[in-house]
């Protein structure tokens, strides 16, 4: 499979706001290191999942890939082209090919825009279709995402729809320009359980039909296991483990992945729980621990961990881990 998106030593630091007096008396600026040097590539047609707890940088990574944030350092290559080097016209064309679906369907739709306008808006912005051609395309998209009959929905406002229907609208809007790559940032976590599977199935059907590639961002590992081809586990701005879904879930190598997987609730009353206890909380992304950033909480910590930062290294095909414990 060919690579569609290549992420190369990507970083995103946000400067910390300081008060007037702090500015007077200090020279240095603190940074929230939301994404701190990550590299991975997404292959055409796959579902690549970024998973981790809140604050691990997964959403920031998604925003960077959707070109809604500019990286502090590093490169993003889309089909081999560095997107930072594109001129504005080329960038505009590229935006048609990369789309994003946000987490909150209550916030991502303009409450004063009718469904038809919202879904057709990208066509207008890109000057692709107007009038009846636009309407036709909108109806077609609504039908594709299962809002049938589409004529019933075009004139409604978002508040007249349920959460599941709104997320379908967001999906229709994201596919109307015929994109190739979609960043889906927790698209189902605000929805009720009984609706999640239906929506995930819809996403997977669209992937086949429209030959889409997804970057799926989630904190829910059970959902991640259900849909992904490959998965990267993030902790405090870094990828700690990356690999094929089967590999990572059945044979987790990083102590953090292990603890994370052990904490996921399993819908089975007969199972014996064995949660791996982690000390403390996730540290702040401003003052990142030295060496391996997981070492203050790691149950297997040893001297080298606080001194030297482990690099993401391949242990075997399709499985990489950043941990000093793991040798080739």
């Amino acid at each position, binding site marked *: 499979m060919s690579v569609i998106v290549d992420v190369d030593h990507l970083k995103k630091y946000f400067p910390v706001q300081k008060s007037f007096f702090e500015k007077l008396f200090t020279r240095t600026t603190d940074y929230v290191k939301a994404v701190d040097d990550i590299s991975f590539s997404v292959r055409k047609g796959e579902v690549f999942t970024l998973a981790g707890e809140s604050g691990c940088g997964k959403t920031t990574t998604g925003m960077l890939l959707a070109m809604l944030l500019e990286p502090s350092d590093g490169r993003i290559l889309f089909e081999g082209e560095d997107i930072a080097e594109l001129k504005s016209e080329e960038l505009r064309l590229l935006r048609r090919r990369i789309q994003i679906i946000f987490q909150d369907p209550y916030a991502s739709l303009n409450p004063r825009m009718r469904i038809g306008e919202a879904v057709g808006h990208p066509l207008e912005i890109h000057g692709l279709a107007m009038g009846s051609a636009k309407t036709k395309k909108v109806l077609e998209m609504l039908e594709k995402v299962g809002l049938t009959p589409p004529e019933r929905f075009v004139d409604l406002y978002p508040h007249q729809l349920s959460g599941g229907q709104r997320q379908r609208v967001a999906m229709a809007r994201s596919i109307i320009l015929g994109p190739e790559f979609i960043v889906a940032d927790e698209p189902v976590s605000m929805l009720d*359980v009984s609706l999640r599977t239906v929506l995930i199935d819809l996403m997977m059907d669209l992937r086949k039909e429209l030959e889409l590639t997804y970057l799926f961002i989630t904190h829910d590992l059970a959902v991640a296991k259900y849909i992904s081809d490959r998965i990267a586990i993030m902790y405090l701005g870094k990828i700690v483990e990356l690999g094929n879904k089967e590999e990572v879930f059945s044979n987790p190598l990083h102590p953090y992945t292990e603890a994370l997987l052990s904490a996921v*609730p399993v819908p089975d009353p007969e199972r014996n729980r064995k949660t791996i206890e982690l000390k403390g909380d996730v540290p702040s992304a401003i003052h990142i621990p030295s060496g391996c950033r997981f070492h203050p909480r790691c149950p297997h910590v040893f001297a080298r961990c606080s001194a030297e930062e482990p690099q993401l290294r391949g242990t075997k095909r399709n499985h990489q881990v950043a941990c000093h414990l793991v040798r080739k």
Partner: protein
Amino acid sequence: MRWLSLSLLEVDSLAVEFRTRRGIIRAVDNVSFSLNKGETLGLVGESGSGKSTLGHSLIRLVPYPGLIVGGHIKIGGKDILSCSEEEMRFIRGENITFVFQDPMTSLNPVKKIGAHLVELIRTHKPDISKEEAVKLAESALNDVGISPERIDDYPHQFSGGMRQRIMIALAIALNPDIVIADEPSTALDVIVQAKILDLLESLRDAHGMALILITHDISVVLERCEKLIVMYAGNFVEYADSLSLHKDPKHPYTQGLLRTVPNIELADQKLEGIPGSPPDLLDLPNGCRFWPRCPQVMSMCRKKEPPMIELGDGHSVRCFLYEGAKR
């Protein structure tokens, strides 16, 4: 049924309504259950199923315009619906307490956490000295795994998980018989969530409390609770112990729910969604509330609301499919 009077909490045909301008919403409709000492009961349902409203009504704190319109709630044999507001203030905290959903907004940001606890303790026990109250507050913090040295810190100095622990400390400070936890873990990450649920379980065992977990996550309740109530559109649809509910779910909604939850321990799971979405409580379908989404719908389901049918062994279900099995 005399034996029922032994249980800690008895709820009998409780009904709660919200009287809004658009009409009357029956958020909880005719529900009955009981809870014994040391038990954990899970209340599971989607948003709008009435699970939180039911939880709030158990401590008589249904927000306006909600109103308890019928039924009985007995705590230790005493009907709290006939208590005065003054008596109720003491029942809350000493007999039954509530851990609210959002630890970020439930604590007063300008008040030290010690002050939260001391105020609670001294309101309920006016005759104890301030020093004793501080001691009790420290031991409550200790119980939930927060160092008592942090008693003078403000809520913003704690992480989300720690704040949830403070909420739990407030709930258990007066040694209540029943603790209700409303989505105690949804705002939290899995690792913190598991820790909080472990903490609630260990406190239940240490203090001999009964626990009610309200959640939308059926995985959590299957894993943690002995008994489960599945709610749909304001009604109980199934009530059983978690083992039989998992092995042999009776109601088509419960069956659907179990087929739609991903299980991280299974490879190549085939999931199926439940088509449609939960009904608007102002515009409920005639008959069974689930029939528009039910794969096994029969003609009578559209006409008549099914009753709760007792199947034996404490398993009951609200579905006409089991009418023949009634005993």
